[in-house]
Every structure is written in C-alpha cells, then in structure tokens.
C-alpha cells in the first residue's frame, strides 16, 4: 500500500512518542511557525552555547508528519554546531524537494531518511518542513540575540 511509504513506523512512532516536546523555561530564541493552509503550529525554543545547539524544545499541534518531523529534527540537531546543523537542514530540504527520486543520505539524516517516502506526496512536503523552517529562523534569531542585537 502506497500509504505505507508515507506513514512509516518510525514516523508514527515519533508522532505517538514525541521527543524534546515541552518548552524549556529559558531560551536563546523562541519562534512560532504556522502552516497557513491547515493551521498547524510549532513553537520552537533554541538554546545556543556559542556555536553549539545545547537544547531544542518545542510545543505544537499538527498532523503526524509535521509532529514527527520536528521530533526527529530536535533529536538530530541537539548537540550539533550551527555549521553541522546547516548541513543537515540543507540535506533534508533537498530530500523533500526530490519528489521521491532521492533516498536521502543516512550518514547525514540518520532516521530522518524515512521522509524520502513523504517527498512523494507534494501535499505533505510543507508539513515535513514546518519544524525545519522554524529552526532556520530560530538559529538566525538566537545568533542575533547572543550578539546582543535584540
């Protein structure tokens, strides 16, 4: 069943048991991103220790894809440097733009390569990217805040 390439076990597992959910009391930056076509919402807190992403936490509501994606993302990016994170974000964005033609790089994306299946469903690409777009935004703001530009 084609649907199974979308709803893979690891995705539904993250959806049922989301990681890093629950906002940290303090943060370097906090952003809220919304999927305008369906109303899905993610609030993301980032804590930066110089260049190191020391903590990523989130709150939100949305479909299995958007929630699983942000859950996996926070798993993947926590403990990475901003530079390492940028590579991962780029790789994930490319995977989601591939319309099912790429399998994704497991060395970079680890478990998140399961989103290769999601990339076949154009209507769900936006869901997958919701958390990642929030991260991009949060990283920029956190750096600015840390430089005292707030």
């Amino acid at each position, binding site marked *: 069943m084609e*649907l199974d390439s*979308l709803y893979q076990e690891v995705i539904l597992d993250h959806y049922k048991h989301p990681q890093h959910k629950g906002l940290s009391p303090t943060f370097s930056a906090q952003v809220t991103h919304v999927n305008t076509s369906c109303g899905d919402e993610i609030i993301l807190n980032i804590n930066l220790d110089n260049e190191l992403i020391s903590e990523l936490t989130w709150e939100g509501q*949305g*479909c*299995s894809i958007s929630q699983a994606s942000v859950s996996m993302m926070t798993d993947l990016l926590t403990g990475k440097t901003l530079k390492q994170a940028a590579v991962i974000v780029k790789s994930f964005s490319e995977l989601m733009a591939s319309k099912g033609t790429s399998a994704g790089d497991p060395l970079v994306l680890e478990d998140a390569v399961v989103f290769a299946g999601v990339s076949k469903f154009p209507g*769900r690409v936006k869901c997958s990217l919701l958390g990642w777009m929030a991260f991009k935004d949060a990283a920029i703001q956190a750096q600015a805040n840390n430089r005292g530009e707030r």
Partner: protein
Amino acid sequence: MSFSAAQIRKDFPIFERTVCEGKRLVYLDNGATSQKPLSVIESESDFYRLHNAAVHRGAHQLAEEATDAYEGAREIVAAFLGAPGGADEIIFTKSATESLNLLAYAMGNAPVGNRFAVGAGDRIVVTEMEHHANLIPWQQLTARTGAELAWFKVTAESRLDLSTINDVITANTKIVSVTHQSNVLGTINPLAAIVARAHEVGAVVILDACQSVPHMSIDIKALGVDFLAFSGHKALGPTGIGVLWGHMDLLNELPPFLFGGSMIENVTMTTATWAPVPQKFEAGVPNMAQAVGLGAALNYLTNLGMDNVHAYEVALTGYLLEKMHAVPDLRIVGPANTQSRGGTLSFTIKGIHPHDIGQYLDSQGVAVRTGHHCAWPLARALSIPASTRASLYLYNDESDCDALVDAILGAQKYFGRF
C-alpha cells in the same frame, strides 16, 4: 421525475475517471468547488468555437452574438435569484471574493454625504463564522476609515448567538455582512431578525450566499437582504465567475470599484464619469465565456428544481449524520441534526489529525478537505484548530456516504496500529 443522483452523475464527465489507481472517485469536497456537467463545459467551449468577440464593443455580427449570450446569462442569474429589479441588478465579477471586496472598496470610495460613506463612529457587523472573504475586507475597511468591527458569536450548538442582537447591531451600524450558510458548520443562519434589526437602524445587509445559492432555492425578495454574493464554481459553473446582486437604487448610489473600459460615460485626461449600472461595475472585457457557462449551470439546476435539490441533500445529510454518530471517537463540528443545516459535515476524530484522516481518505478515493477551511477565527473560537470536512452535492448518494464512513473506520484501524 424522481431525483436520481446516479442519473445526474452521468452528466458529469469527471466521474468517468478513477483516482488512486483505479478507485471510484467519491467527491465530497463540494464546499471548496463543485464538478461541472457537460452542458456547462460545452457552453463555455461553444462560446469560443462559435461566438467569441468582445461584448458591447464591436460593430459586427460576432460581437452582437457574444453580447446576446453574455446578457442572456445575466437574465438567467436574475431569474434564478428572483432579483426584484431584473437583469440590470446582476453584476458579474470573477468570484464571491471579488464581489465582497468590490462592496468594501466601493463603500470606501464613497464621498461624504453618500449613504455608503463609512467613518469613525460607524460600525460594521459580521459573524464569528465568516469565511475570510467576508471578514478581512471589512477588517481592512474599518482600518482605513476608523469605523469599528463587531460580530455575532457562535453558540455551543453551532448557531449564531442572536440574544444580544441589539447590542451587536447598534444605532451607528452601517453594514451587516453575514454568511447564509457556514462553510464549516453547515449551519443555515436565520436572517429575518438580523435583516429587521439592520434595517431598523438604517444599515444595509450583505449576504454571503456562496454555500446557499448552489444548494437551495433563493428568493431575494423573501430574504429581504440588500446585497448578495456568490461564486459560479461552487454552483456547477466555471471557475473565474462570480456574482454580486444589489438593489438598483443602492447600486446607483454605490461608487464604482474597478476603473477602465466600458464602465465610463465620458473621459478626459483628468476626469471620468460613469456608465449606468451594471456596466459601471464591469470594467474591461469581461469573463464572457464564464458568464455564459454560469448561465448553463443555473439552467441545469433549474431543470432539476432547487427545491428538489435541497430536499435530496437534506435527506442525504440526515443519512450521513446518523452513520457518523455511530462512529466511535467521532465528533461532529456543527449541528447534530438536519434542522436548518446544509450538507457540509465537518468532524474530528480523537487521536488522529485531520490532515492524516484526509490523506487516508484520499488513498481510498474519498476527496475531502482538511484544515481551518478559511474560517480561522471560527476554528479558534471552537478550539478546534483543524477539522475534516465532507460536503455533499446533488451527484452524491448513500454509497458515497458509506464509502466515507468505511474510510474513516479504516483510518482509525490504520493509525491505531501503534
């Protein structure tokens, strides 16, 4: 003639195709847009094949034929709505969205002294269940003019709360713009009290009839409203065509909206005066083929009889509501029975996000919509950020309802695996 959805479906070419690798198309997204019968598709293409020319402009036979076709469509719309002033009260726009924006901008263009001039101290009234198209234009008009926006709330029973009507429609209210039928809840709003109160304070009543014109017989005189807007594409018509109806005396006083060719009386480099209604509101070469297609769509509906269409849809809605009530963990977002409600059924399923429901339904050939349905403030008021919406039309039947419910049960099983 008894009403047969199966027979009707044969008039709609799209049902000859399948979806999702050979599955029957169960189209339940009629609240977003309807499918088109062959007569509509062909009337639009016949216009291009046989009569295409710019209306009201050319000095030749084609232009006269095109004008007859276009003005004929205006007559059809006027008759369909029971426009008291006839065809000249019908204005063709590109969509209900444009019709409603037309009103808001034209009123914004009204000079002091014009009955539509809006300013600080005036009030505009909407409801909490409006589609964005009947909310944001009024937000913007109040922001531009300093007027205030007020609204009717929605009760726990998915009805307008009219208990405070005199506090909502105040003496300084100039405009009351409400939806006839909610595109989320299916609720059909009672208009008599609103119209009476609005007219008592001298306000005009605008009806967003997007979800009612396609589904029930409309008699403008009986409704008592002053303006009415709807979109062709939800009423079996082509895309790219909408209608604004208004009382002739009001349309005469209302300033124009779009400026350009065919809407003028006289033009110099610095000044312009306006042609009579409806031309005043139809600048440029119009969406002629689409107007003609809309005429064909309304003729199709008239042949079936709008009362028959409505009765059929209410009965089918009752059937589907009953089946849904039996589904565990399913909550209907809207009235629980068929009293004053149309065939728009929104619902949530405990533990499964609407987007995932919609995806599973799609895999079974069942087309629905998910999200806030362009009525985000309503979603917030109900604390339901998103829902799944099945919306029925005349070509749907019990087998479609069965397919929907089976697919919902399937989704529960599918996502319950873990």
